[in-house]
Each structure stands twice: as C-alpha cells, then as structure tokens.
C-alpha cells in the first residue's frame, strides 16, 4: 500500500504552519499503510478542536462529531460492525476535559479501538485556554494568574482503570511514534496513545524544544506487564517518559463480550429481525404466566 492512497490532493489545511498536528497526520498515514489498512476499512471518529479536524485532511470514512464525544460513536461503530478498524482521535481538551466521562468508562468497556489524543496542553481551536493537561502556572486569557488545577495525568488514570494498552509519544520523533501507533492499532482492545504535539501558536511554554528537553523514553528494562511499575513511571516527577507504559494482554473486548457475534459474524447492517421468532415472542403474551 502507498500512503498516497490517503492523500486529499490540494486542500486548504486549517492548521498553523509548524503545528505538531501535521506530523501526527503524516505518521498516521504511514502507520496505516504499513499495517495495510486502507481508507475503506478505516473509520475515524473525532470530536471538535484543531486535532479533531484531522479526518478532513485524510481520505477515509469518518464521523466528525461533537466536542468531547468521539468515543461513544466509535464504540458503537465498532460494535455494529467489528470488521472495521476504528480510531477515535481528538485533542486533550476534547478527550480528557469535555469527554472525561467517556474516557474513563470506555476504558472499562474495552472496545477494540485505538484512542489517539493530541496533547498540546492547551485548547487550540478556542484560542488558548488551559486544557486538563496544562501545567500549573500556565497563563492564559482565562487562567490569568496561571493554572491552579493539578494537571490531568491520563496515563496514571488509564493504568488505574487497568486499560489494556497505555502509551505516550512525542511527535517530534516520528519513527518511534509510528512504532507506538502500530502497537496500539494491532493491540486487541482499547489502546490509548497520548501524543505530545506542540501548539506553536498558543502554547509558548511547552514548545518543540521544551518537549525535546523534558521527555525521554522509558528504559529498556521497563516491564509493561507490571501495573505497579507502570503506575510509578506514569507518576514520576522529572522528565516525562515516552513509550509503552502498560499492557494487559488478558482482557476480552467489548465486541467479544456482547455475544451477538458468537454464532453470526455479519455486521448489523446485513441483518433482518427474525419475524418468526418475534411472532413466538408476541404469542407468549397470550399465555404468559
């Protein structure tokens, strides 16, 4: 497969020059190409924000829904047609702020989808307010005296909820990010990839350079199958770590649990209700005891 398959040709991209979102777009196309997942097989679901515009720059099926609500349709799409590859992708504000409740509960639900979060530590589209991941002291037109809330730690929360796959990447390193995306997409079950993505316009603190200086990869000895160790790494002070923090390989997916596919693999759109059976059910109300 050729990554060009996904290209939209000459289009007007709304992102700022230099934005980390471009890198994520490119890496994602490469990842899908290498995994041989074509546009027709993929469904992208996004919310609203700069990150959430990604499917518009990309040849694929997509549902670009409401701010904060990428996960619920994604889960439903996967459940209604498990043969599709489903990626739910949005910004940090979208996924952890407005959409926080879906984030925590879909980890519990464990659908076989990949959740990519563009983490620029700011609300880009609405021009620079704090996001849940903004660092303490970060000043914005709303947080005039700087952020006073504890930054949201998506990795620690995901590990606390025993998510099946938890990773963090920095788009400054395209190759490693691609490897992480690949692992996430091929992981069977819910996979979180939080991707550091500099917002060059509204986040003058957490810049490309800042991320370069303040991140480093988990060392080789880290055992992603050890939950307590993963939690420790996710909550360590000092440099922000990158890589695959945690994998729980022993989880069943939502689609496998719901059982309606156990003896009929057809997606829902191919099905018709069984009217004979329905007639029998109706008739039970004639005699029901």
């Amino acid at each position, binding site marked *: 497969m050729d990554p060009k398959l996904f290209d939209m040709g000459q289009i007007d991209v709304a992102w700022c020059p230099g934005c980390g979102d471009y890198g994520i777009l490119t890496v994602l196309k490469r990842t899908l190409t290498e995994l041989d997942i074509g*546009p027709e097989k993929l*469904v992208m679901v996004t919310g609203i924000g700069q990150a959430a515009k990604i499917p518009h720059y990309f040849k694929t099926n997509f549902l670009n829904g409401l701010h904060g609500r990428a996960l619920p349709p994604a889960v439903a799409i996967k459940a209604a047609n498990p043969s599709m590859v489903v990626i739910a992708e949005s910004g940090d504000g979208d996924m952890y702020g407005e959409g926080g409740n879906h984030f925590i509960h879909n980890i519990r639900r464990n659908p076989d989808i990949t959740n990519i979060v563009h983490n620029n530590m700011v609300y880009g589209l609405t021009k620079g307010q704090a996001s849940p991941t903004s660092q303490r002291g970060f000043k914005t037109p709303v947080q005039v005296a700087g952020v006073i809330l504890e930054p949201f730690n998506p990795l620690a929360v995901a590990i606390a909820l025993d998510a099946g796959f938890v990773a963090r990447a920095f788009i400054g390193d395209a190759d490693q990010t691609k490897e992480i995306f690949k692992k996430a997409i091929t992981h069977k079950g819910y996979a979180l990839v939080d991707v550091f993505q500099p917002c060059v316009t509204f986040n003058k603190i957490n810049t490309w350079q800042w991320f370069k200086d303040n991140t480093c990869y988990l060392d080789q000895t880290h055992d992603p199958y050890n939950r307590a160790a993963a939690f420790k790494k996710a909550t360590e002070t000092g440099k922000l770590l990158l890589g695959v923090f945690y994998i729980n390989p022993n989880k069943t997916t939502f689609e496998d649990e719901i059982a309606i596919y156990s003896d009929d693999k057809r997606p829902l759109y191919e099905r018709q209700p069984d009217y004979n059976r329905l007639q029998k059910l109706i008739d039970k*109300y004639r005699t029901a005891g």
Partner: protein
Amino acid sequence: MAKKQNTDVSIVLCGQAGMGIQTVEGILTRMLKGAGCNVFATKEYMSRVRGGKNSTEIRVASKPVSAFVNRIDLLIPLNKGAVEHLRDRISKNTIVIAEEQVVGNEVHGNFRFVEAPFTKIATDIGNKVFSNVVAVGLLAGLLGMKLPDILDYVKKFFASKAADIVEKNTKAAEAGFQLAEDLAGRIGLAFTIEPDAGVKDQLLLNGGDAIGLGAIAGGCNFISSYPMTPSTPVLTFLARNGRDFGVIAEQAEDEIAAVNMAIGAWYAGARAMVSTSGGGFALMVEGLSLAGMLESPLVVNLGQRPAPATGLPTRTEQADLEFALYSGHGEFPRILLAPGTLEQAFYLTARAFNLADKFQVPVILLTDQYLVDSYYNIPGFDLAKVKVEKYFVKTEADYKRYELVKNGVSPRGIPGFGRGLVCLDSDEHDEYGRITEDLQLRIKMVDKRLKKLESAKKEIIPPELFPKQKYKNLIVCWGSTYHVVKEAISRLDRDDTSLLHYSQVYPLHQKTADLLGKAGKVVVLEGNATGQFAKLIRLNTGIEIENRLLKYNGLGFTVEEVTAGLKKILK
C-alpha cells in the same frame, strides 16, 4: 348488598412498595384474562423501593376496557393508611375487604367494610407471605372464576418454585376462594363478568412491552440508554430479548454517551434507539442537534414524567411536547409520534425506525408512565403490517453523503458497504461531508435539511376521528389519553361529540384547521399545565382553543373527571 349484574368491576389494591401488590396484580390479571375476562391494570406508585403507598387498579369487565377510572368497586388495602391514601376515590359504593386493624378507625360508614383475615389464614398455612395469594383466590372467586381454573393457574405461576411453595400457594388460593364463597353466601357479595372465549387467546401486555416488540419489528438492533423511570422497561425488554434477536443493549455511562452511541450505530448501519425521560433527554439535546446536522436517523423513546428536574419520578405527565419539538441548537427537522394505545405503541415504534431511516431525521416517541405501565388485553399485532424498510445504499467511489438532491434526502451510505467513503461532519459541510465555510453552500445545506420536513409532511399519520365524522363538539387529545377520552365520550352519550386523537403531533396534520373549523366547540385535553398541544395548534392553524382540560398532579386522567369536565364545558 343486593346482587348486582356487575359487568365492569374496578378493583384496587393498595399497600407499601415491596408488599407484593404486583404479584397479586400479575397473577390475577393473567388468570382472569385466561378465563375470558377483559382486564385492564394501571398503577400509581411512589419513588421508593419499600414502604410508602402504592396502588394498582384492575378493571375486570365483560367488554374490553382500557382506561383508568376513578371509581373503586372493591378495595383491598394491605396496610394502615391505604384507605386514607385513596380517600378521594372511595364512595359509599366501595366495598373494602381487609383485616380489621388495617382499616382501623377509618370505618366511618363512608364505605362498606367486609372483614377478611388474610394474615390469619396465611399464617395458618405456614407464613404470612401467602396472604397475597389468599387475596388472589378471594378476588378470583368473587369474580366468578371456578376453583380448578384458579388452582391450575396458581400452580403454573409458581411452577419454577419448590414443591412446598407451590403447595402452600395453592392452599392459600383455595382458602381465598372459600372466603369468597362464604362472602357470597353470607352477604351476597359477588360480581358477574361475562367471559368471552375470544379474550382467552388475546395478548396481555403493557405499553413498555408493546414499544419493545415494536422496536424489534422495526428492525431495532441497538439500544444504548441510561436507566431512568419510566423509560427503563424498554431498555430491559431489549436487553432481555437481545440475544434472541441480535440486539446490542448497552447501558451507557450517561445519556450523552447513549445518544452519541446511537448516532454512531446508525452511521455503521445499525438501527438504533435510546430510551430516556425528560432529564436524560435534556442531556441528549446536543446529540439531537448533532443528528440534525449529520442527517442521522435516530429513534428516541421519551417517557414523560412530571418535572422540572427530578420532579415526581414515578408519575405521569405530558409536559415535554414543546421541549421535544424545539430543543437543540439551530434549525433542523424532526418527527414527533405519540402513541395512545398498545397497538399504536407497537406499530408506531416500528414505523419510527422506517421514518428515521427514510428522512434521516430524529423521530421521538412521546410516551409516558401511564402508557408504559398500563396493560390490557388486545387481539394481537399483525406482523404482516410491519416491515423493516432499509433506505441505505451501496456506495460508489466518489460517493457524496450530502448530495444536494431535490427533496433534501441524499442517499445514505454506510462505511464498509460499497466503494465509497462515508464522511459525516458536525460542522457545516459540503456535499462530501467535508468542513466548509462557503456561505452560499451554508444556505443550500440549511434549505436541504429543512426540505426533508416537507417530504415528511407527505406521510403524516392522520389523527383518528370518531365515533362520528360529523360533530358539533370536538375533543382533541394526543398520546396516552386516547382510551380515557374515548370512554368518557361514550359515557356522555351524545351524538354530536367526536374525539380527534393525534398519534403524530409533529409535523401537525394539514387537515387540522379544517377538522377543528367544522366544530362548534373544540376542547383540548392534555396532561400538562400550559396547554402545549393547544399552543402548537394555534401556531399552525391560528385557531385558539379556549376550552382546556389540563391535569398535572402526576396522575393520568380518569374517565370520570374527563366525563365531568366535558359535561361542564359542553353543557
């Protein structure tokens, strides 16, 4: 009491939550129906799991009955305070059968008191829990059922329990039956219901079941919802039958998730619904607007209950019409259905899926606690009359989800079916579904979306007009009040008065102005405080209906109050 030829008896059981009223109701209605009696049951209950005062009305009649009456012919109060709770409905003609201490000093000659030592009998059998079944035996006996039939049914009902339990319940029923014989002999207490063999094989089910069955008939294969009275029964119905019918029934983390899941499911080719009540629907409003923009089909069961906010969670009301009609930011079409009978509940729910799919709009079923919880016998549902009409298409390459077609309804593709890509966007978009700020296109897309309503107007379900097509007085109502108004009108016994019942409230049928214009006097009846349907009629026809019967205390209308109300207005 002189033996009356009573062909329509209203029995009320009243006690605390958890005392087993529902068991009595369940056994009695099914048993009586099995014996050929027409039955109707409705309940009113508090928002609590134990204690309080709940009551169930069971009507047993020679002719079909399907409406709540105020009158109580026979009252079985199960605990202290029950009589007080129903004070307003008790008359001199009410026979109260109870243990002495339950009625206590409330025996004032306001009603006829007949003592029945339920607990003692039950305790003699082995445990006071059996007193419910003693009551069943008593009532069945009073209503003229034969003992073997009673015992047969009781055995069947408890078949899954231990032999000992079955035996004791059978004994309890028998003891109850003997009590009935005794009362009949001693004080002449008995009722004569003409059994009708045809009834025996009819369906006995409530509104919740009818909606659930209708959903399956309509091809529903996905429901995502969050529990909320009185909409939960539809969720549990589909969960219970999910495996058999291939329905994914998922309890969402909240209502926002529920509606967004349903939209995602439709996108992927499922036929999805959500079931909720006012407060949950409030949380779905943004999702409703999303469905409007994505042009996604969506089916919503909106079980109305008294509000604002938490209100009276287990009661009934019809006050969410305007809410359902106008909520959601921006302008987009929707269809509002309001079933009034079990048949309508079934057929309209099935149809809701076809309408949603055909016009790519949200279809909202305005139901309520009264409709969902009430049940009665009906002949059946005809599956030949329903059909799953799927409107999605197999896409070609270069597929345009929002193609600007004349009637506004672009062919709907789904991802993975065909060669095209299916792109849905909550921003304003071009024909491909890609985000746009072309303001000329904006106008075209707004017009396109609104045009779908014009298409939908060609298929509005006409209101039902009866008994006469010519009338001087016209009584207008919608949704769950159908049978109550119907029975009230028949009681009026006038040949100049007809009922006009709307099971589709929006878009409003074009004949409305005409039909109302023909009447000398129009009365609207609805379960809210501000006359919302009357307002909708005014807005659409210019006709202001001044005569209004409104109720908003949390209970459904009773036949008597409608009759009296109409009498007063019609003079």
